[in-house]
């Protein structure tokens, strides 16, 4: 795998001129692995434990519930009664957009039900994810490069960049709603009369602009940290060798920043695929801005078990995206190294 991911010509200086894995192989290696394994278990235990309680338990209990029917109304008493086991029907209902029919069967979900929105919400979620993550990566990279330079007022820029991210989302969303109002400062400033939350394209771009504004600092900061791990001498050497700015960016900066960059993109993608607050407050999901998470929240209000199924579907979708990232785009924090170690058997 290491070779597939392509170590670059300037890779070596970063890791100090020697491959990281230079443990002698052969006799005694198994013992070493065993003792390292014990260490690793101790070091990892707190993380695993924290995640197990607060994330894994709720996930599993949600998955369990997703195989139960939601409560139905008993017409005689007017009270809800437990739905009973559902098999995969909660899942198939979402995927094939089937809704309950008055006669007891299923019909294609009519517009106005949540079920009718599954595929469009999936599409919207990807639309937001692809555009916001791309914009945030480009802008974040650019901001990081500027912030890494030495100039007067650099700390001002660094502090300013964090301002959007430091404002709690609840406030950010209200702020943008305020800005994007018809009589708001946005239209006033640019002398436009756009109904920002009134039709599909402006509404989607309102969400994208607000999200990009808010989360670019996250990208910028992670990339900046990556940039700062690159020793200055590497650049100087490249300059002496007459490399152009673009060559230096492509041959030095990009490969050396890649691990940090991939982690940042991976986590931004996972977050963007679960985007909720901003579109919810800005548009309440109108005009095709309903994301999967908004659909989950709306469904929770109508029945948790079906919402749990939708959450699990979302989970699987995100899982597939993460898989692609890790498998094909090299967003794996240890793969190169240990892959190389193992590959040389």
């Amino acid at each position, binding site marked *: 795998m290491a070779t597939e991911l392509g170590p670059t010509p300037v890779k070596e200086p970063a890791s100090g001129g020697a491959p990281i894995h230079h443990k002698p192989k052969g006799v005694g290696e198994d013992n070493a692995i065993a003792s390292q394994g014990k*260490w690793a278990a101790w070091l990892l235990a707190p993380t695993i434990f924290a995640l197990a309680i607060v994330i894994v338990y709720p996930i599993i209990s949600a998955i369990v519930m997703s195989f139960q029917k939601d409560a139905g109304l008993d017409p005689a008493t007017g009270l809800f009664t437990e739905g009973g086991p559902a098999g995969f029907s909660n899942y198939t209902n979402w995927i094939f957009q089937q809704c309950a029919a008055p006669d007891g069967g299923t019909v294609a979900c009519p517009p106005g039900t949540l079920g009718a929105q599954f595929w469009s919400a999936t599409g919207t979620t990807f639309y937001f994810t692809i555009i916001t993550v791309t914009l945030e990566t480009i802008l974040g990279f650019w901001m990081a490069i500027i912030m890494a330079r030495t100039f007067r007022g650099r700390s001002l820029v660094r502090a300013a960049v964090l301002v959007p991210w430091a404002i709690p989302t*609840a406030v950010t969303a209200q702020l943008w709603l305020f800005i994007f109002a018809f009589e708001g400062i946005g239209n006033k400033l640019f002398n436009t009369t756009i109904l920002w939350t009134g039709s599909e394209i402006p509404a989607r771009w309102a969400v994208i602009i607000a999200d990009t504004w808010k989360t670019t600092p996250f990208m910028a900061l992670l990339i900046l940290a990556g940039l700062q791990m690159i020793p200055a001498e590497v650049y100087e050497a490249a300059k002496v060798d007459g490399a152009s700015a673009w060559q230096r960016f492509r041959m030095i900066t990009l490969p050396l920043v890649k691990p940090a960059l991939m982690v940042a993109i991976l986590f931004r993608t996972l977050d963007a695929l679960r985007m909720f607050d901003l579109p919810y407050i800005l548009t309440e999901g109108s005009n095709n801005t309903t994301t999967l998470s908004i659909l989950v929240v709306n469904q929770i209000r109508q029945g948790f078990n079906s919402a749990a199924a939708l959450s699990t579907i979302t989970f699987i979708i995100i899982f597939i995206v993460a898989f692609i990232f890790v498998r094909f785009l090299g967003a794996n924090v240890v793969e190169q190294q240990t892959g190389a170690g193992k590959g040389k058997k």
Partner: protein
Amino acid sequence: MTAATELRARQDRGRKVAQNREKWASVRTYVSAAVILFWCLAPAYWMVVTAFRDVGYTYDTSLLPTHVTLDNFKTAFDTSFGNRFGQALLNSLFIGVTVTVISLVVGVFAAYALARLNFRFKYLVLGFILGASMFPGVALITPLFQLFTNIGWIGTYQALIIPNISFVLPLTVYTMTSFFREMPWELEEAARVDGCTQGQAFRRVIMPLAAPAIFTTAILAFISSWNEFLIASQLSNDATQPVTVAIANFAGAQPQQIPYTAIMAAGTIVTIPLVILVLVFQRKIVAGLTAGAVK
């Protein structure tokens, strides 16, 4: 024209070109910095302007401050109507610091193991950690609420701290692992040859080098905990509520009125400590940078 003068002229030209290029580079840097400042601060500026505006003129669109008043800040901190904004600020600070410290310590352990040690099931562990940030957070609340009800944790600080730790841990572990992998670990071994224990070598040699990564991660963890709203809105009570929940509790004087000006004032108040925090951490990040350069 002799060869010597020609050479001198060429050198002069070369120097001039270099100087020009440098000048241009610095101009470009400043222009870029100005654009970044505008993009990041313009909406925030509108927040601040609104925060200082009289509530009766909430929707005024004059660019410069008009009808300036401190009332909104007073409203934010006014406790007579049951607002606990001041208390909530302290709660957020306490929760944020605890989450940051614990998740960093725990995350550094895990990242060290993942980056440095060879053991079986590494991919399982990595997948497990990443999998934790794949489930829609909104759907975790119901089971979590029931779990915490059963063990009597609703309204306690741990009910807010532990979920937040879990939310930031995947990012913390991944970031640190990716940075640790790039560390010049032979320095650690060199230190051990010089008589340090493994722990000392890690603390004295590796940690300073990893400072930019660690402080960056700290800021990310702190802000993400500082921003958390969904879990806190359902698991906190009046005494433990963080500032995000307190802001959602702001209400206008009239039933359907949205108190924009007070919300913006609260946003302004909440942002300031973070900016200060970042300015303080700045120096650590830069210190880490120079430490790296010394090597």
